[in-house]
């Protein structure tokens, strides 16, 4: 009984040659796995891209903020220049009007003493 079992086991567990085809398939699969590994980007290699993306985003945001600040400064400067120009213009017209008025008065009311000296052409 025990001998039969032993023979059965021995025959069942005897080494069997898998054959050339099986070996080729296994080797081919190993090679495919290696290829796949090579093609897959390593985790460490993706970090610079993340950094680059962050830097670009930060630079864009900073540029946008700077552009807004620059625009506001420029607008404020133009406004101040415009208001100063307006004040100068009003002052110039005031002086002009004052001197025209002086001429007007001189022409309109020449005094006797000045009669000989005042003319309007």
């Amino acid at each position: 009984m025990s001998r039969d079992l032993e023979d059965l086991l021995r025959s069942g567990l005897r080494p069997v040659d898998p054959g050339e085809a099986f070996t080729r398939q296994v080797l081919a699969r190993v090679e495919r796995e290696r290829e796949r590994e090579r093609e897959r980007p390593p985790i460490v290699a993706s970090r610079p891209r993340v950094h680059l993306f962050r830097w670009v985003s930060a630079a864009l945001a900073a540029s946008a903020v700077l552009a807004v600040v620059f625009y506001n400064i420029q607008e404020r400067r133009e406004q101040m220049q415009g208001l100063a120009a307006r004040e100068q213009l009003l002052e110039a017209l005031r002086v002009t009007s004052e001197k025209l008025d002086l001429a007007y008065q001189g022409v309109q009311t020449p005094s006797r003493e000045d009669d000989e000296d005042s003319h309007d052409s």
Partner: protein
Amino acid sequence: MIRDLRVTLFALLLAIVSGAIASAPASANPLLQIPEFEGLAAKASESVTVTLDSALLQMAARFLSADDPEDAEVRKIIQGLQGVYVRSFTFDSDFAYPQADIASVRKQLSSPGWQRLVEVRKRKEGTEVDVYVSVVPGSNKANGLAIIASEPRQFTIVNIVGAIDLDTLHKLEGDFGIPKLDIESKPERR
């Protein structure tokens, strides 16, 4: 009555101005070479220096309110202007300013194309006021105005470049803190 007479006289003056403009012989450069008078500002008790070129005038016009009647009047005046230049100095003592500099400006106004419209000489008061216009040849349009006013303690040079309406300019009297002539309340000058 006197007011009416004055208005009539001024209207007559403006008519004379128009006639003078129409008969002007040649074109002058309406932009005067005004000395800088750099040292005078320190000596003067008051000084007004205005230099507004075309770009600055346009900028100033943007800040004139469309709703304010005074600003609207100013906007109308500066519409055709290319430059406004004013030098005015007031001193604490008589004739503290260089006569030679004023003479150099007067000399520029003696060139053809400039027409003297008004000449006021008050020897007793030491006041001299001259108003000149420069005209576009072949038209009766003024393209420049110059005023030289010298008083014992003040001298003023005004040069306005561009199309000028003297009548509108004179209407500004009173709008810039200058009281309008109230003849009835003023004593008659002799």
